[in-house]
């Protein structure tokens, strides 16, 4: 593994050396590989993860993370279908990234220090925030996690949620037993069957479940304690900063488009008649958007035309257009009371 990484690092070093003296045009090794291959390799899931990675009735991938992969594919290759979604388990996603089985992991992945440093990964700007929360039966009469003493908590194995809940309960000195399962559906099944007192998961996921999958939704309560605010970001291999730039600006462009009111339906109009200089730059009417990343100037325009802006992608997969009807909440723009923002498009 280190050998391959060494090679990549060497290649990147060589690329950056040769770039000295010229203008700082991006020369991402990963981008080059993707362009030569003609296919972007993204992460899928070994099954489904509600709203983020799913398979529809036509045996095709869908979901928020899949749409972001497709958006990235448009940005690079100009066609949302020129990608290959590699099914990966949670545990397999990082080894697969390191071995080159995928070019990027967009898979509801939390940005943690351990992953950033020890695993040799780089993370994009976060595109989603979800905090770990606990759900319990109302009959327990609990209103806070600290009252869970002696209880059993069901959680999905190998996720950041497991660690966050354990740390939180330990800090509060709450004696508890943790029961972990490989599959989200199994965790829910165990909670429903009464094998555990509390169900720990992402707050948004719990809300979705409670609203849709519980016949007795009234007899359960989601505790208010937010045990974390986990930033969800795309993960990439260390050593290719220019690739990180591309993924970052792909996400930024989607969010910026929402901020500027550019949607898939009005993008052509906006291109013909940009209301302000930022929109003109974003849509490639003014040059410069593409060259700096090693892409076409029109990449963001094509991407928005094909996939929509961030709001459209969210609504389609998690919001009003999905079975989940999840409110934006934290995941709204900063100007609408959320925490999503973009770097400046200058």
């Amino acid at each position, binding site marked *: 593994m280190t050998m391959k990484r060494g090679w990549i690092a060497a290649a990147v070093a060589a690329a950056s050396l040769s770039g000295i003296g010229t203008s700082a045009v991006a020369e991402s090794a990963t981008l080059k590989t993707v362009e030569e291959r003609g296919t972007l390799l993204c992460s899928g899931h070994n099954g489904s993860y*509600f709203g983020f990675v799913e398979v529809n009735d036509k*045996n*095709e991938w869908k979901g928020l993370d899949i749409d972001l992969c497709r958006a990235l594919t448009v940005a690079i290759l100009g066609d949302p279908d020129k990608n*290959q979604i590699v*099914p990966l388990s949670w545990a397999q996603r990082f080894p697969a990234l390191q*071995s080159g089985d995928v070019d990027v992991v967009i898979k509801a992945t939390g940005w943690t220090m351990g992953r950033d440093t020890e695993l040799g990964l780089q993370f994009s700007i976060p595109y989603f925030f979800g905090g770990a929360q606990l759900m319990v039966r109302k009959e327990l009469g609990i209103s806070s996690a600290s009252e869970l003493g002696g209880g059993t908590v069901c959680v999905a194995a190998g996720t950041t949620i497991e660690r966050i809940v354990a740390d939180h309960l330990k800090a509060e000195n709450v004696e508890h037993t943790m029961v972990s399962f490989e599959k989200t559906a199994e965790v829910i099944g165990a909670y429903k069957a009464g094998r555990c007192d509390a169900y720990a998961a992402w707050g948004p996921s719990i809300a979705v*479940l409670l609203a849709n*999958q519980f016949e007795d939704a009234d007899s359960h309560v989601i505790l208010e304690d937010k045990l974390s605010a986990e930033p969800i970001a795309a993960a990439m291999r260390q050593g290719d900063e220019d690739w990180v730039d591309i993924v970052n600006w792909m996400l930024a462009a989607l969010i910026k488009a929402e901020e500027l009111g550019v949607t898939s339906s009005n993008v052509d109009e906006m291109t013909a008649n940009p209301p302000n200089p930022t929109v003109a730059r974003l849509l490639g009417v003014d040059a410069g958007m593409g060259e700096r990343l090693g892409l076409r100037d029109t990449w963001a325009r094509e991407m928005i035309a094909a996939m929509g802006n961030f709001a459209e992608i969210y609504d389609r997969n998690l919001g009003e257009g999905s079975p989940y009807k999840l409110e934006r909440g934290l995941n709204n723009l900063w100007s609408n009371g959320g925490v999503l923002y973009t770097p400046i498009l200058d």
Partner: protein
Amino acid sequence: MSAAPPTIGRFERLQRRVFRKPLDGLVTLFIAAILAWLAWQAIDWGILRAVWRAEDAALCREAHAGACWSIIDARHRLILFGLYPYDEHWRSTSAAVAIIATVILSCIPWFWAARRLISLWIAGFATYYLLMEGSPLGLEQVTTDKWGGLSLVLFLFSSVVLLGMPMGLGLALMRRSRLPMLRWVASLLIDFIRSLPLLTTLFTAAVVVPILLPDWLQGDKIWRIIIAFSLFFACYQAEVFRGGFQAIPNGQFEAGMALGLGKWQSLGLIILPQVFRHALPATINMVVVTFKETAVVIIIGLFDLLASAQAAFGTGDWVAYYMETYIFVALIYWAFITSLGRYGEFLKEHMKQEDH
């Protein structure tokens, strides 16, 4: 219980067995009541109160609704074919049928000659590959990463058994060889692979090999998995064959030589048929275990039957009905494994007849 010979009188026999003493009778009645209650629950939930059609999915949410088979109606194509493109499903179906037909045909004694069997399997596999991949036939190309569901399981399983069986026999023969070099190599390989869990072996093939080997040597992930899985199977099967060899007295080799047969002739004509017979029950066992173990490929990202089943209920509309999905998948596994077991019985009977 019910299979008593009619000569003694079925009822009398039953009475003697389960109602001998009053306490026996009570226990019998109690257990029968529990079984009847369970059966009633299953029928009531699974059939009487069940919702069957995808269009009726809304009825599943009503309080009195039983099993929601609508999910199978709506998502069975996902379960059976994984990520295979929707419009090309007929190819996946035909490919699976080709594999099943190959397996069934090779159960017919007429095919039990090396040349016929080998041609049959090559034809079966070629059909499968051509249909699934498509490009040599001028159909739309479907890369192996899109293969999935039941047809992938059948392919993995039959490739592993097909490659693993001769490899296992080869390893068993090497381990019995008079040349120490061959013996050591075989023992080392068998002991090494057997000391590793299957998952580790497959993970190595899927994830570590691409890091070590140059690109042109890697091949598709699915082939690496099949080779690693076959090797794993072969190492266990070699030990099964070794047991078969040990059951045969050395005198038979000598008898073969005395008849003027060469080493390979006596092996093929005298020893191996007996080895197969001795090794048969354990071999069927290995084959059944292998069929079920194909489910671990989910970990290295192949969309097998179980993975696609999980994808089938892993969406907002269907998540509540995972039980129905698992039952459906369990029935599929049950059907195949029962057939394998039956085939084992048939082989045993057949070989017994050959004895006389």
